[in-house]
C-alpha cells in the first residue's frame, strides 16, 4: 500500500514543517567547497599540531573536545530539526547510549578505542532504526513522544543495570594514549581525532543532504502526502533519517566519553537533550557551521553563568539561560547564528519585511 492513501492526523500535519528550497542558498560547486573545507581543516590540524603547548592549555583542549563532540551530535540532530521537520527530545540519551557503549567496550572488553567508537555508531544506528518505527505512520511529532520517553527512561535504567553500567558511579576508562612517537598530550591527540571525525561526518551529511535525499526530505517535510504521491518513500526515509541521526549522536557520545573518561547516568538527563536542541536552534538548524556555533554556546553557557550567581543555584540559572536563549532565537532569529549574516544583509539591503521561520512555515 502506498503512503499516499495512508491516513494522517490532520491537525498535526496541516502546517508544513519548514520552508522549502526557497530558503536555501544556491547550491555551490561541490568540489570547490569540499576542497576549501579540507584546506581549512588541514591548516587547523597543522596549527594545532605545531602550536606551543603553552598557547592552549590541556583544559582548554578538553573544553574544545567537548565543543567538537557536541557539535557532531547537533549536526545529527539538525537532520531532524532542519530537514526532516521532526523533533527528538532524546538525543542526549542517544549520546549517552553511545558514551556507555564505548565505555563498556573499552573498559570491560579491552576493545581498542577506534573500534569501540564504531561500536557506538552501530548501537546508535540500531536503536535509532527501532525507535523510528512508530513515526512511520504519523511522522514528525510522534518521534517527540518516543524520544521524550527514552530521555526519561534511560537514566534510571543506567542506574539499575549495575553489572553492565556500574550504577550511579558510572564507568571510568583509562586515558587514550597518543600513538608512540607523536609529541601530543592525550587531549591534544583527541582534539585532532575529534576534528577529523567532525569534518568527515559533516562532509558525508552535507553531501547526503545536497542530493536526492535532501530534496526528498524537504518535500516530505512540507507535505508528506504530496511527497509520497511523487514517489518519495516517506516511510523508509523517516526511519533512515532518524537512524542516521541517532547513529551520529551515539558516535559523538562515544568520542565524548573518550575525552571525559567518566560517564555517569546524571550526565545524560532530559536536560542535556534540551541543551542539544538549544544548541541546534541557536546555531541554526540548517547549517553545519551553525552546529559548531551552537555547540560552543552549549559549552560556554555554564562557564559564563558560573561566576555570576550563587554557586548552589548555578545549575538552575544555566537551565534558565538555555531556555531563554532557545525561546528568544525562535521568536527573533529563527535562522540562528548561522543565518545572522543573511538576516543583517537583508535588513540593511532591500528593506524587505523580515519573515520569521514561523511565518514562512505558515505560508
Amino acid at each position, binding site marked *: 500500500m502506498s503512503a499516499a492513501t495512508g*491516513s494522517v492526523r490532520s491537525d498535526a500535519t496541516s502546517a508544513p514543517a519548514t520552508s522549502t528550497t526557497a530558503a536555501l542558498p544556491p547550491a555551490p560547486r561541490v568540489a570547490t567547497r569540499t576542497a576549501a573545507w579540507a584546506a581549512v581543516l588541514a591548516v587547523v590540524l597543522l596549527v594545532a599540531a605545531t602550536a606551543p603547548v603553552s598557547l592552549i592549555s590541556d583544559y582548554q583542549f578538553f573544553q574544545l573536545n567537548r565543543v567538537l563532540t557536541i557539535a557532531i551530535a547537533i549536526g545529527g540532530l539538525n537532520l531532524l530539526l532542519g530537514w526532516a521537520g521532526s523533533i527528538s527530545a532524546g538525543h542526549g540519551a542517544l549520546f549517552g547510549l553511545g558514551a556507555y557503549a564505548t565505555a563498556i567496550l573499552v573498559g570491560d572488553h579491552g576493545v581498542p578505542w577506534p573500534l569501540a567508537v564504531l561500536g557506538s555508531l552501530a548501537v546508535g544506528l540500531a536503536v535509532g532504526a527501532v525507535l523510528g518505527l512508530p513515526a512511520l505512520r504519523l511522522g514528525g511529532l510522534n518521534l517527540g513522544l518516543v524520544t521524550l520517553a527514552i530521555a526519561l527512561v534511560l537514566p534510571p535504567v543506567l542506574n539499575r543495570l549495575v553489572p553492565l553500567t556500574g550504577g550511579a558511579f558510572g564507568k571510568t576508562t583509562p586515558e587514550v594514549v597518543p600513538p608512540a612517537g607523536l609529541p601530543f598530550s592525550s587531549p591534544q591527540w583527541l582534539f585532532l581525532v575529534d576534528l577529523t571525525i567532525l569534518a568527515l561526518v559533516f562532509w558525508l551529511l552535507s553531501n547526503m543532504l545536497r542530493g536526492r535525499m535532501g530534496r526528498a526530505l524537504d518535500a516530505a517535510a512540507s507535505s508528506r502526502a504530496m511527497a509520497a504521491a511523487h514517489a518519495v518513500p516517506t516511510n523508509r526515509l523517516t526511519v533512515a533519517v532518524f537512524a542516521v541521526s541517532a547513529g551520529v549522536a551515539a558516535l559523538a557520545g562515544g568520542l565524548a566519553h573518550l575525552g571525559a573518561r567518566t560517564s555517569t547516568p546524571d550526565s545524560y538527563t532530559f536536560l542535556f537533550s534540551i541543551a542539544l536542541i538549544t544548541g541546534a536552534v541557536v546555531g541554526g538548524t540548517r547549517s553545519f557551521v551553525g552546529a559548531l556555533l551552537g555547540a560552543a554556546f552549549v559549552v560556554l553557557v555554564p562557564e559564563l553563568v558560573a561566576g555570576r550567581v550563587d554557586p548552589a543555584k548555578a545549575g538552575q540559572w544555566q537551565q534558565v539561560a538555555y531556555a531563554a536563549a532557545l525561546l528568544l532565537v525562535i521568536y527573533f532569529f529563527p535562522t540562528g547564528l548561522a543565518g545572522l549574516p543573511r538576516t543583517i544583509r537583508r535588513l540593511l539591503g532591500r528593506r524587505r519585511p523580515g519573515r520569521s521561520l514561523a511565518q514562512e512555515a505558515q505560508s
Partner: protein
Amino acid sequence: MTELWQQVLSGLGTGFIYASLALAISVVYQGTGVFNFAQGVMATISAYLAWTLVTHGFPFWGALAVVLVASFVLGAATERVFIRPVEGASPLVLITVTAGLLVGFQALVAIIWSEDPQRLESPFGDGRVSVFGAVLTAQQLGSAAVVLVTLLITGAFFRYTQLGLRMRAAAQNPASARLLAIDVGRMLALGWGLAATVGAVAGVVFAPTLGISPGMMDSSLLLALAAATLGGFESRAGAVLGGLLLGVATNLASRYAPGIRGDLQLVVPFAVIFVVLLVRPQGLFGRLSSVRA
C-alpha cells in the same frame, strides 16, 4: 485475589493524576495542535503556590480556590506571551517552545522555592476506608473523588455550555470559527488557562501523596502523555480513560513484574507509547482523518 483488587484500586487512585494531566494535554492539543511538554511543571507551580499559602496560614481548601484562579491566569498568560508569537507555526516550532518552557519553568521553580522537597498535609486526615476488602487511605479516596468531580465538570463545560461549544469550534476549524465571529485567539488562551486549572487540581490535591519538589510531575508527565496517546489526543474522554488504565497498569507491573520498581516504572508508559504508535497510532478513541495535499 484481595491483593490484586487492592493493587487495582490503588493504581486507579494514582491514575487520576495521569487522567487529569492527560485531559489538560488533550485540551491544549485540540486547540494549539501540539502536546504541551510544560503541562506537568505548570501543575508543579500550582502545588508550590498552594504550599506557600498553606504555610502562611490559609486553610487547604481556601488555598486551593486561590491557586485554581492563579493557575488559570498563569496558563492563559503563558499562551498569550510564549505561544502567541508562534501561533500557526509548524508543530515542530511549537513543541520546541513548550520544551523550552518546561526547562525554564522547572529551573525557576527550583530557584524560587529551592530544590528541597516540601510536605503538604493531607486535607482528608489519615483515616482508612475499606472497599470490598481492599484498604484505601482517606487521602487516596478523597483526592480521587475531587479529581473525578473536576473531570466531570470539565466534560460538562465542553458539552453543555456556549463557551465550551465555541472553544470546540475554534479548536476544530479555526477558519470557520472566525467567520462565526468567534475570537479564536481568545479561545486558545482560555483553553490553556482551563488546562492549567485542571492540572492544578491534580497537582495540589495529590501533593500530599507525591511530595512537593521541582521534579514532582516529571514521571506523571510521561505517564499522562502515554495516557493521551493510548486514548487518542483528540478524545478528552479517551485521555481520561487512558490515564486510569495506565495508573492500574503501572501499579500492577511494579507489583508483579520482576525488576520493575520505583523509577523503573517509567518503562511501562514508554512501552505503551511505543506499542500504541505502532499498532493503533490514533489511539483507542482518536479518529483518523485523511489530508489533502
